[in-house]
């Protein structure tokens, strides 16, 4: 019996596909998320919108919060550690969480290095803004990728930018000859063997979700039509006026993302979505997506 293998790590992400992973801060939130049809939850002390508002240094959540959420639901529970903070990751692995998000939403612990994730039995998901960043993370051992977007803004524009960047690069690779791939790998800053793999299969080597700014059922379906295999919704659910209804609607829109009649139907009467932020009003130093490389 082999545990913690690559197939097992990447396989759990395959089981999450077509689903919605919801940020939760209490066991009660977690139960609402599970009841709404979330395929997993992200256990946090604060949702990204509140982390953004609070400022200061954001760290791994208190294990008490994470354990209470693991106790409350039967779906997989993820938790975030800071970029490069491999000891927070070791602690999360010891708690038994099902996935670790090495996340730009928390304050980075290391500006030059991400975690060497192959050392862990627990799988990792990492953020990216383009194909090169995605493949660097996969090479380090990320078993799942999510585009970063701009967390806590309720604004989909950065998520769209990052997903388009990844998908455009993949399409571009498919028309290249082998010698061109070497130059392209250099330009992308990605390992050649990963680039070759992407060209052969026409997709990322691991499952790719969208994150950072999804605040409505239509946002979720937009990301799916652009090529996401599932979505993370952070502040979009529990910062809306009716989290239960919003959660259910986003789950349905993610499954039926190519069915406009269903998307229109589930978008009815959801109350007020989370307040949004215009990205251009955020000072550059406060952007989360530029954390990590």
């Amino acid at each position, binding site marked *: *019996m*082999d*545990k*913690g*293998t690559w*197939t*097992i790590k990447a*396989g*759990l992400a*395959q*089981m*999450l*596909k*077509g*689903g919605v992973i919801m940020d939760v801060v209490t066991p009660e939130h977690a139960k609402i998320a*599970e*009841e709404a*049809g*979330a*395929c*997993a939850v992200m256990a946090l002390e604060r949702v990204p919108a509140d982390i953004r508002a609070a400022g200061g240094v954001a760290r791994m959540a208190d294990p008490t919060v994470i354990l209470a959420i*693991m106790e409350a*639901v*039967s*779906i*997989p529970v993820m938790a975030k550690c800071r970029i490069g903070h491999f000891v927070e990751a070791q602690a999360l*692995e010891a708690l*038994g*969480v*099902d*996935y670790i998000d090495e996340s730009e939403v928390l304050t980075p612990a290391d500006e030059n290095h991400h975690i060497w994730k192959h050392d862990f*039995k*627990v*799988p990792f998901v990492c953020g990216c803004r383009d194909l090169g960043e995605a493949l660097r993370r996969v090479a380090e051992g990320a078993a799942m990728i999510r585009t970063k977007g701009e967390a806590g803004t309720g604004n989909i524009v950065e998520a769209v930018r990052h997903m388009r960047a990844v998908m455009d690069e993949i399409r571009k690779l498919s028309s290249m000859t082998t010698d061109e791939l070497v130059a392209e790998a250099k330009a992308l800053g990605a390992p050649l063997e990963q680039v070759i793999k992407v060209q052969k299969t026409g997709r990322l080597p691991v499952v790719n979700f969208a994150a950072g700014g999804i605040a409505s059922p239509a946002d979720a379906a937009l990301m799916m039509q652009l090529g996401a295999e599932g979505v993370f919704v952070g502040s979009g659910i529990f910062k809306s006026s009716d989290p239960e209804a919003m959660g259910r609607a986003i*789950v*349905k829109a993610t*499954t*039926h993302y190519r*069915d406009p009649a269903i998307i229109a139907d589930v978008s009815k009467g959801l109350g007020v979505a989370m307040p949004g932020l215009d990205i251009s009003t955020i000072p550059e130093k406060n952007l989360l997506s530029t954390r990590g490389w």
Partner: protein
Amino acid sequence: MKKIGVLALQGAFMEHITLLLSLGVEASPIRLPRELEGLDGLIIPGGESTTISRLMREYALSAPLRDLCNDGFPIMGTCAGMILLARKVAHINGIQPLEAMDIEVRRNAFGRQVDSFETELKIPVIGEPSFHSVFIRAPYIERAGEGVEVLARLYDGTGVAARQGNMLALAFHPELTDDPRLHSYFLSIVNGDAKR
């Protein structure tokens, strides 16, 4: 050509479709009741059983799926699919199984993700060599009724694959490997070549 539907509400449905296409049958994703028409068989894939169960109810798929099961329609469930085919589920958390097979299963029976594993399984109905099987937060069979044939067990005797009539339930993920033998076995049930 035979046409197999794969329930595509959430989970690893594309992996099943790819494997089925490689075996030379038609395969299509199923999200709504009207898409069930004209199928020769159905696969319920792995994913989150709570999510799939909720979407099945919300889009009125539970009743037609129960009817198909009662009519002896060929259905294969893997992991979450096994849970949804079961008569009874321990650790149920809001799931409403189809109660199609006379098996009682336990969800997340081996523990959390860190306890997920790969192992070799002897499965007599597909012969040698043993089948490389991937268990991810997997269920197992706690009890199987008289009409149920347990097709595979772990080294400690735990039942992890079963057949009842034209229904097949697997606790693991043949769609995550390149070995098509269990899908071929299911297609032989669809073709009526593997009658019991």
